[in-house]
């Protein structure tokens, strides 16, 4: 079946999204693995000829929501993010870490919208279907996510750091 081949091809995309969504590598790969297994179990629900990738993101979203619900009792994300090394060099690596950290701090539903739009380039319609929300909600979550992210990244700009050090 060619779905098997397509699934394998799509793994890097799934990993990238999962990594940005859950914040660490091994939980991300766990999420991808659960998604692939669920996809096999639910493959009869996939309509051939439609976008398999968008369908997989829907499956992943459902798996993720269930996992988060199961783990809700212990959700220390906010305070347990590792502190950044403040060595003053504003390298690309530091920017990536700042950004990753800021994304992790977005509310989960806004984070999913932002990532599906910017990282995965899904259309607003596809995002609405993937997450099972109205398109108006997609737009408002996108707007709020971006504004929060912008504010957080401004707070971590080099000039802001210098002011803090002083």
């Amino acid at each position, binding site marked *: 079946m060619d779905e098997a081949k397509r699934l394998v091809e799509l793994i890097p995309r799934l990993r990238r999204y999962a990594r940005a969504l859950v914040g660490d590598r091994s939980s991300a790969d766990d999420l991808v693995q659960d998604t*692939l297994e669920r996809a*096999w179990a639910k493959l009869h629900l996939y309509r051939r000829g439609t976008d398999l990738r968008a369908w997989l993101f829907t499956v992943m979203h459902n798996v993720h929501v269930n996992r988060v619900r199961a783990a809700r009792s212990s959700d220390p994300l906010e305070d347990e993010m590792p502190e950044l090394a403040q060595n003053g060099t504003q390298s690309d690596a530091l920017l990536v870490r700042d950004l990753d950290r800021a994304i992790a701090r977005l509310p989960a539903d806004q984070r999913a919208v932002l990532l599906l739009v910017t990282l995965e380039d899904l259309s607003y319609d596809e995002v609405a279907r993937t997450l099972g929300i109205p398109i108006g909600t997609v737009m408002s979550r996108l707007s709020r996510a971006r504004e929060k992210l912008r504010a957080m990244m401004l707070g971590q700009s080099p000039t802001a750091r210098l002011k803090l050090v002083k």
Partner: protein
Amino acid sequence: MSELPVTEADLQAYADGRLPEERRAAVEAWLAARPEEAERVAAYRRLAQEVRGAYETMLSEPVPARLAQAASRRRPWRRAAAAAGWLALGIAIGAPAGWQLRPERTVTQAAPDNMLIARRAAIAHATYSPEVRHPVEVGADDEQHLVAWLSKRLGVKVRAPKLDEAGMSLVGGRLLPGENGPVAQFMYQSQNGRRLTLYVRTEASRNRETAFRYARENNVGVFYWIDREIGYALASADLSKDELLRLANLVYKNLEP
């Protein structure tokens, strides 16, 4: 020219480059008169680019074996169902009467010790082969370390035989407790997800060699033999007896010094 008012959704779509041509000019004109808004939208564009850049390396990373397996595996649940049948038997492990392996060819004088290796290998196979997430402790991508580690713990040089010519590739291995010390288990898998495990233990009495023997219980078939100081048992619930024998021969040949 009466234009629709510019909405926040328009600005988002503009930042994403998704605004239809006819609307774009209106938004650009609107932004031109509002430098702060223009700066905000420009920042969104930069951020989108930075977000893509931040995770770009994930796309070129090699795919972990467990994910490739999960993507191509047809039906893990068949094995899981087989394992459920074993669960009841697992309870009987402590009560030897409840667990009777029947050698297919009756080997007279088959030492009980020899039977034990087949029994243990069958239990270990039934326990770990349905595992989806953690079938092994150390994966085949780190085979050198795996073999070195198991050799060290068993106190003899063990090797993971190459079975690729029979369509079985190494998944990895794990360490298990045994009667006379640690035992190694190597796991193999075919392209369509059929699994095979090789159970390797050290033998108390050396310089013994036995022929292949076959035992079967429930779904798990086991070929087992002793070669000098090492006892082997090759187990699978997914292969026919003939296929298993062919693989046992291949393992034996492969392990010849």
